[in-house]
């Protein structure tokens, strides 16, 4: 292993990103607009959960302290999570979930594509599969973004409101080492927004991460971790 592999901090940032968003998506189960979207959103969540598992397992192996994927997911405190704040944001209505997903996917496709031939061979091996998954996720979220944004007056209004509410979290998606990904992201988002007839809010103030974990994440983890903490080592 050379010095150019991703740090465990970086691995966990992306594992946490995928896992927190997976948890949010599964909150839609039995609540989506129809059975088909229920399955579609759950499928996205399952793909993301699979990505998180692989990254947690890799982080655990490199750390060499015997921590498993479950230890990372279930036994860390909220302050130890490194996910960008975008993926914690509540599901809101279907438009908000779609806008959150589109912004996430536009970032994720750039990040994973850069990993395919990147210097970290373990992450690169994973990336080949994840790029395919993420390409589909983007097709799904972009497709709905355009339908909702360029749909009825009501769906346009809701989509625009979601863009206004979520845009401030875009800057926080990018770690300092991600700077090279930003132009590709901006092009994708601009094209998607143009097709959806929505625009980036002018003068939107960027979200600044607090030193304390957000109440949203604390609540999400409390629910996700409660079973495991009540019954240590529980499995199916």
């Amino acid at each position, binding site marked *: 292993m050379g010095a150019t592999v991703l740090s465990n901090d970086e691995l966990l940032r992306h594992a946490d990103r995928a896992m927190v968003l997976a948890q949010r998506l599964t909150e839609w189960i039995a609540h989506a*607009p*129809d059975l*088909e979207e229920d399955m579609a959103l759950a*499928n996205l969540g399952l793909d993301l959960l699979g990505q998180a598992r692989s990254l947690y397992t890799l982080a655990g192996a490199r750390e060499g302290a015997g921590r498993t994927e479950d230890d990372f997911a279930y036994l860390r405190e909220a302050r130890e999570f490194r996910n960008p704040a975008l993926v914690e944001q509540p599901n809101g209505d279907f438009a908000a979930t779609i806008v959150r997903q589109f912004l996430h996917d536009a970032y994720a496709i750039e990040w994973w594509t850069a990993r395919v031939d990147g210097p970290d061979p373990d992450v690169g091996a994973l990336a080949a599969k994840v790029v395919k998954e993420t390409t*589909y996720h983007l097709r799904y979220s972009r*497709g709905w973004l355009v*339908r909702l944004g360029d749909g009825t007056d009501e769906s346009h209004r809701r989509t625009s409101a979601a863009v206004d509410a979520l845009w401030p979290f875009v800057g926080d998606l990018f770690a300092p080492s991600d700077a090279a990904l930003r132009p590709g992201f901006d092009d994708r988002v601009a094209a998607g927004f143009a097709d959806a007839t929505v625009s980036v809010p002018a003068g939107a103030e960027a979200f600044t991460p607090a030193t304390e974990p957000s109440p949203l994440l604390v609540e999400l983890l409390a629910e996700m971790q409660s079973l495991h903490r009540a019954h240590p080592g529980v499995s199916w």
Partner: protein
Amino acid sequence: MSDNWNLWEVFVRPRRGLDHVHAGSVHAPDAEIALQHARDLFTRRGEGVSLWVVRSADIVASDPGDAGELFDPADGKDYRYPTHYELPDEVANM
């Protein structure tokens, strides 16, 4: 789900060289979403290499009440099967 969500019939081709086979149906507002729904519902476990979706309303179906006149006349007509005919011994390979 609003009124503009139509029903679409889904056909899955299990692998190259086989035919598309009817797998079920999905609700969707348009063809692209129908295809995505079909993908999410019917190919989660590697069931297919190709999908067709067809608006259910575009399928012309036979009336179950007509089964007598449409299908029963095929009964008892063994001569329509190749196995009905005895081959002469001289025809070795056919």
